[in-house]
C-alpha cells in the first residue's frame, strides 16, 4: 500500500504544480491492460495463503514470477516514456532477489518486529509466508542478495509503518518522474514556450 501512497502523493504534487489530468489523456501508454492483468493475478496468488514458499518450481511461485514477466513486457513496450526505465529497474531489483530466494521477497523477523508487523507471519519458522504479502520470513544470514530484500523500515510508531526494498524506492521515484512529466503542461503549451518539435510520447 505504500506504493499506492507514492502514486497519490505524486499526483497531488503534480496538480499543485499546475498540472492537469487532461494532459495525461494525450500519453501513449501501450498495453496497460497487461499490467492490470498481472496485478489481478498477483492478488489471487497473494491472498491464497501458503505455509511456506514451496520453492521455485511450485505452480503458485511460477505464476507469481510469470506475472513479473508480463510486467517486464509492459516496461519494454513503454520504455521511451519518462520514468518507465526507473520503474523497470525497481522491478528487476525486486525480481532478482525474489528469484534468488525461492520466488518470494525475504524479510528478517527483527525488521518485521521494528515495523510492528510480526503478526503477519503465519509462524516463526524460516520460510513461513506473511499473510497477504509477497514476503517470506528468512534470517539475514540465510538471505541471498540481502541488500535487495525488504530491509528499509518505517517504524511501528510512525504513520504508514511498513517494510520495503531498494527496488520499491526506484518504483516510487519512477512513478513520481512519470506523473510530474505527463500531468504537467501539455505539449502544445510546451511548444509555444520552447518552439521545439512535438513530443513523440504524446498523441497529436
Amino acid at each position, binding site marked *: 500500500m505504500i506504493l499506492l501512497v507514492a502514486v497519490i502523493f505524486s499526483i497531488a504534487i503534480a496538480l499543485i504544480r499546475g498540472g492537469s489530468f487532461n494532459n495525461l489523456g494525450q500519453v501513449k*501508454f501501450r498495453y496497460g*491492460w497487461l499490467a492490470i492483468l498481472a*496485478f489481478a493475478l498477483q492478488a489471487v496468488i*497473494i491472498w491464497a495463503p501458503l505455509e511456506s514458499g514451496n520453492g521455485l518450481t511450485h505452480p503458485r511461485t511460477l505464476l507469481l514470477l510469470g506475472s513479473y514477466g508480463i510486467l517486464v513486457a509492459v516496461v519494454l513496450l513503454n520504455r521511451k516514456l519518462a520514468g518507465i526505465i526507473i520503474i523497470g529497474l525497481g522491478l528487476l531489483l525486486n525480481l532478482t532477489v525474489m528469484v534468488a530466494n525461492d520466488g518470494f521477497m525475504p524479510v528478517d523477523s527483527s525488521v518485521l518486529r521494528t515495523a510492528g508487523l510480526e503478526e503477519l507471519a503465519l509462524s516463526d519458522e524460516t520460510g513461513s509466508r506473511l499473510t497477504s504479502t509477497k514476503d517470506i520470513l528468512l534470517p539475514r544470514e540465510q538471505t541471498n542478495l540481502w541488500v535487495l530484500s525488504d530491509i528499509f523500515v518505517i517504524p511501528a510508531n510512525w504513520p504508514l509503518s511498513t517494510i520495503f526494498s531498494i527496488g520499491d524506492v526506484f518504483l516510487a521515484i519512477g512513478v513520481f518522474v512519470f506523473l510530474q512529466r505527463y500531468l504537467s503542461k501539455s505539449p502544445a503549451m510546451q511548444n509555444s514556450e520552447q518552439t521545439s518539435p512535438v513530443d513523440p510520447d504524446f498523441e497529436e
Partner: protein
Amino acid sequence: MKKTYYTIVYIVLSLTALVMASGAPVAFGGSGTGG
C-alpha cells in the same frame, strides 16, 4: 471528451497496477496486498 476521460482512467489504473505489482513492500496496518 468521453474518450479522453476513459484514456485518463486507463493510464492511471495501468500505471498504478504496474507499480504496485512490481513492488514488494509489506502492507501497513496488517492489511492490503503487499503492493
